[in-house]
């Protein structure tokens, strides 16, 4: 309404001549910013010294208290993407991106007040709740738009955006450390000012993304692209209403496939540094372990693009079969690399595993599009991300508690992770079975052409505007 009407979907419909290659950078503007969440830990130690400055004072926050900030944010990512998914889909990407920008920047500003007044609940509310909502809305905001612009390469398109989420930490981590060093004084750790600067910079970046994003005109298709006229295998030409998707076994099978794939990856991602040092004492130093973690992050990011792009050629289900089979083999191999002292084997195993962890995230939007059509794919993707929240709890708990149990029962530290690796391999077997049972969605769930639900018109296989170019 009024001044904010430029955010409406109607105002974002691309005119003929708009290049679809403007959309991936628009999506990256958002995903690179919200990907900062992966680098949030750089603030943890400075925030334990807000009062003591050089060392933690008795009234300073504890690391265990600060750990909740990230957990709350990831929880609200899943909740908000599930709740606001339909609104994001029907309101359009610009409105969603702008909302995410306001929430993300607002989260930093409230957190800045929290650090300056030393009130932790404000940071839980700011970064945790508001930032988490921004993560959820921002994560799904460009997905369906990209799929509609790239019907010929949906995996590659969503892979590019979700790669940005993995890459956001690469920018945020050195930037945050540098900013804190600039604002640090003898009486101040510089976290408050860093939060404010990050809030301003991220808001600017995300608003730029919301300005340049466009949705294709109804019936648009890339030059030379011939849309299939009927469903083929798992790839449907029909749409499924967002809440009807929940009634299909396919949604829940893919939910478990994602949850299990992420559980297997997220557990080792968080413990990679400690695990590498304990499995290879004397061979991998703390400095080398930090390098290993950095290399894993690169493969996490690269895997998002590479695997999702590969899925355009080999199919989504086959891509997840590769994740499950190859992952199973690699998890079973890791204990042998430990007993044989093969650092190279260990590193290679985990780099491939972590690339498939990232690939699992980036391939799933295209998988959903194949199963449920393009109309509500963003909203359905939002509902599916609750699997991520669940995996965020399962994964680290499995790795940490099983290791602790083994160590307290006399298992040498170098072998304490072996059981976990076999359990992860077992999870992937279950994931394989779930993926195996994914079949085409029953026709009774398909939306009719005259279905009145939602506000967006059903994208019929209309003739594309001639001037639209790819």
């Amino acid at each position: 309404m009024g001044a904010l009407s430029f955010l409406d979907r109607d105002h974002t419909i691309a005119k003929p001549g708009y290049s679809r290659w403007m959309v991936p950078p628009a999506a990256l503007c958002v995903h690179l910013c919200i990907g900062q969440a992966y680098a949030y830990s750089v603030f943890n130690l400075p925030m334990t010294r807000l009062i003591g400055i050089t060392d933690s004072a008795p009234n300073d926050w504890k690391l265990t208290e600060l750990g909740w900030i990230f957990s709350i944010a990831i929880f609200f990512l899943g909740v908000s993407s599930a709740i606001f998914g339909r609104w994001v889909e029907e309101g359009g990407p610009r409105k969603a991106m702008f909302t995410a920008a306001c929430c993300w920047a607002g989260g930093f500003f409230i957190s800045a007040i929290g650090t300056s007044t030393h009130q932790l609940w404000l940071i839980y509310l700011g970064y945790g709740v508001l930032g988490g909502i921004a993560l959820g809305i921002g994560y799904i905001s460009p997905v369906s738009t990209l799929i509609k612009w790239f019907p010929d390469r949906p995996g590659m398109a969503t892979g590019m955006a979700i790669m940005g989420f993995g890459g956001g930490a690469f920018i945020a981590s050195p930037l945050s450390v540098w900013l804190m060093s600039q604002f640090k004084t003898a009486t101040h750790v510089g976290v408050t000012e860093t939060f404010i600067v990050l809030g301003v910079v991220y808001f600017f970046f995300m608003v730029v993304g919301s300005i340049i994003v466009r949705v294709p005109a109804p019936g648009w298709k890339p030059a030379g692209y011939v849309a299939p006229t009927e469903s083929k295998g798992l790839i449907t030409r029909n749409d499924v209403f967002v809440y009807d998707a929940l009634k299909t076994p396919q949604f829940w099978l893919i939910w478990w496939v994602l949850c299990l794939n992420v559980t297997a990856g997220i557990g080792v991602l968080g413990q990679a540094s400690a695990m590498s040092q304990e499995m290879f004492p004397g061979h991998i130093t703390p400095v080398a372990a930090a390098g290993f973690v950095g290399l894993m992050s690169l493969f996490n990011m690269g895997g998002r693009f590479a695997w999702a792009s590969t899925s355009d050629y080999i199919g989504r289900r086959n891509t997840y079969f590769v994740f499950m089979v190859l992952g199973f083999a690699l998890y079973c191999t890791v204990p042998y690399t430990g007993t044989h002292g093969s650092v190279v084997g260990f590193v290679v195993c985990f780099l491939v595993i972590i690339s498939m962890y990232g690939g699992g995230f980036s391939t799933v939007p295209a998988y959903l599009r194949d199963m449920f059509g393009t109309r509500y794919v963003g909203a359905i993707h939002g509902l599916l991300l609750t699997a991520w929240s669940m995996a965020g709890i399962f994964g680290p708990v499995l790795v940490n508690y099983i290791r602790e149990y083994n160590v307290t029962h006399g298992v040498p530290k170098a072998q304490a992770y072996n059981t976990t690796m076999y359990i992860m391999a077992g999870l992937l077997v279950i994931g394989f079975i779930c993926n195996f049972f994914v079949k085409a969605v029953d026709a009774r769930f398909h939306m009719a052409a005259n279905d009145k639900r939602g506000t967006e018109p059903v994208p019929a296989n209309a003739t594309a505007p001639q001037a639209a170019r790819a």
Partner: protein
Amino acid sequence: MDAEHQETTTLQLVLAWGFVGIPLIFGVVQTLINSMKLFS
């Protein structure tokens, strides 16, 4: 130019990709440099 036709120029594409690509490449290079410590 026709108001209903908005041709995306090469400059716009370069600016848009540069806007996100330059920070991303900076971050990747920084991470790659740090990762090399694994091999030192």
